[in-house]
């Protein structure tokens, strides 16, 4: 299967402020009663977007100025909690193609890479500035350059970081890992053979 190399992501931004936004917030469990990821975009941040009576709140995901946004900007420890890939899937299906934040929970960041969505980190000050820039001018295009790596908005640039393994996976187009793993089939079988429990501890 043909894999997509990702080096530059461009789009307008959408800020979602707050630390420790967990995956239950990103997609409440009741919307996970599905056997495919299709259609999950409608439920992204659902309980933050609608109040008890179902009235829309002022959450950025409800704000028409961000309707076509593709780059999400968040604060610390984004995506903590449950391992559900439904969370990045719902963001992706809403239209998000890249995420900038101060820090990400590990399983969430891994899920993003596995889907080909870069999650890059910036420091607190840059994040705050990026959020303000996007809030004041939602039409400004943002670019995440994964190779350098850096973020560009208007005539400003901000340094960002991405773990080297995730950077390599996105740049080489090897973020869809199944095929790559299966290339080492012989070593897989060899490893299995040396594990004492695979043979039922018979010797």
């Amino acid at each position, binding site marked *: 299967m043909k894999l997509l190399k990702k080096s530059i992501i461009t789009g307008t931004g959408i800020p979602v402020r707050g630390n*420790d936004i967990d995956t239950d917030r990103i997609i409440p469990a009741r919307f996970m009663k599905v056997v495919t990821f299709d259609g999950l975009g409608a439920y992204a941040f659902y309980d933050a977007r609608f109040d008890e009576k179902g009235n829309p709140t002022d959450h950025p995901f409800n704000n028409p100025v961000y309707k076509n946004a593709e780059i999400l900007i968040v604060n610390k420890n984004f995506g903590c909690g449950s391992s559900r890939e439904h969370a990045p899937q719902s963001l992706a299906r809403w239209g998000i193609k890249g995420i900038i934040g101060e820090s990400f929970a590990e399983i969430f960041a891994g899920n993003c890479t596995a889907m080909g969505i870069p999650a890059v980190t910036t420091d607190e000050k840059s994040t705050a500035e990026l959020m303000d820039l996007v809030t004041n001018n939602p039409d400004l295009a943002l670019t995440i350059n994964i190779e350098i790596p850096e973020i560009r908005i208007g005539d400003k640039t901000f340094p960002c970081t991405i773990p080297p393994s995730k950077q390599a996976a996105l740049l080489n187009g090897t973020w869809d890992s199944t095929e790559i793993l299966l290339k080492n089939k012989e070593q897989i079988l060899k490893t299995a053979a040396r594990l004492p429990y695979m043979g039922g501890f018979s010797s």
Partner: protein
Amino acid sequence: MKENLLNKVWNLHKVAELDSGTDQLFIGLHLIHEVTSPQAFAMIRERNLPVLFPERTFATVDHIVPTDDQSRPFKDELAEKMMEALEKNTREYGIRFFDLTTEHQGIVHIVGPELGLTQPGMTIACGDSHTSTHGAFGAIAFGIGTSQIRDILASQTMSIQKPKVRKIEMTGKLPDHVYAKDIILKIIHDLGVNGGLGYAYEYGGDAAAKLSMEERMTICNMSIEGGARVGYFNPDQKTFDYLKGRKFAPEGAAFDNAVSFWKSIASDVDAEYEDTYHLDISHLKPMVTWGINPGQSCSIDETLPLLKSLPEEERETAVKAYSHMGFNEGDPILGKKIQTAFIGSCTNGRISDLRIAAAIVKGKTISSTVRGLVVPGSKSVARQAEAEGLDRIFTEAGFSWRKAGCSMCLAMNADKLRGNEISASSSNRNFIGRQGSPTGRTLLMSPAMVAAAALKGYVTEITL
């Protein structure tokens, strides 16, 4: 010989180094459930890939099962659909499924250990963040996403970065009415909800050696709430005794061979760690969360923190927490009213948890303003509890005694908080909306504390 368990197990299971710089790791035991697996099966089907080692994957159903009427088809059509998908996928690919018709069904992290599937020195993965539970046996166990479930089905391996190892050195003796749950809540309180990012937590020290297997599971279970994807204890005689005679544990001579292997993978006495954190458990008190993440907790004799006393970066979340919870800084945690009491989950739904809670409510009745729910973690826990008469103690006290599943831990079935109810809960997450009502509120605590709170209708000290 300065290796810790993580390094030894990692090296043994490392298949290759990948171009991306991560390791390709062989997964000895893959556990699946109905919520995170269907899309993974769809992906391998789409690519026409077989399951490479179907005998190394085991399935159970837990998140969506009703805990009252379990007859099929389920009343909830979506739940029924998910159940059917798992039935079809396991049948088609030759995977063992402990479904509702078997005697082994239960929460995935309770079923693995109780069947002896979970063993020291293994790598274990499951599309569920609380897979860290299995580390109690000296396995390296972690939660994964759906794309990685696909990878493991297809190749029995996954791409992963090796974590650093932090030793959590525990000393002292656990005071009365203080439990494993309080230890882990305290660790998360001290190190923070993201303090463990990039780390595996190795729990050790004299106090760790004294903990039972079930207590170890409670602690490893919540490692992920502190940001550590992996938490583990070194295997010891307690581990071996627990495993002996279990359905999937080796028998006879093979068991002895297994024990030698299990001993060999334990951390060396002079093993090296990235860093060490010390905790004297002798002065611990029961812990209760007051906020919207598991790090926002205090001991029962404390008052809720003043915003100005918190580090700058924690204030914003604390403000949000107080507004969601309807609490004020400086409030005592004792006396906070509850409307629901939930005993269960993969953190505290094992037989020892039910025994402790039953001892507290025995011969008493819960407050008329409290709805109490006891949900055993597995069918086997339920059978044992019923054999000991614990179910009757609970029902006589006014609790409802349910069938095994995740239930109100995440409320994907019909068990949900209503409106802005406050729940005293033995589960692991107090995130906004976690227990099924967007405005619902959760106070995490030990099962003993939940039982005590249920009797009084508010957070209170444990009395027997």
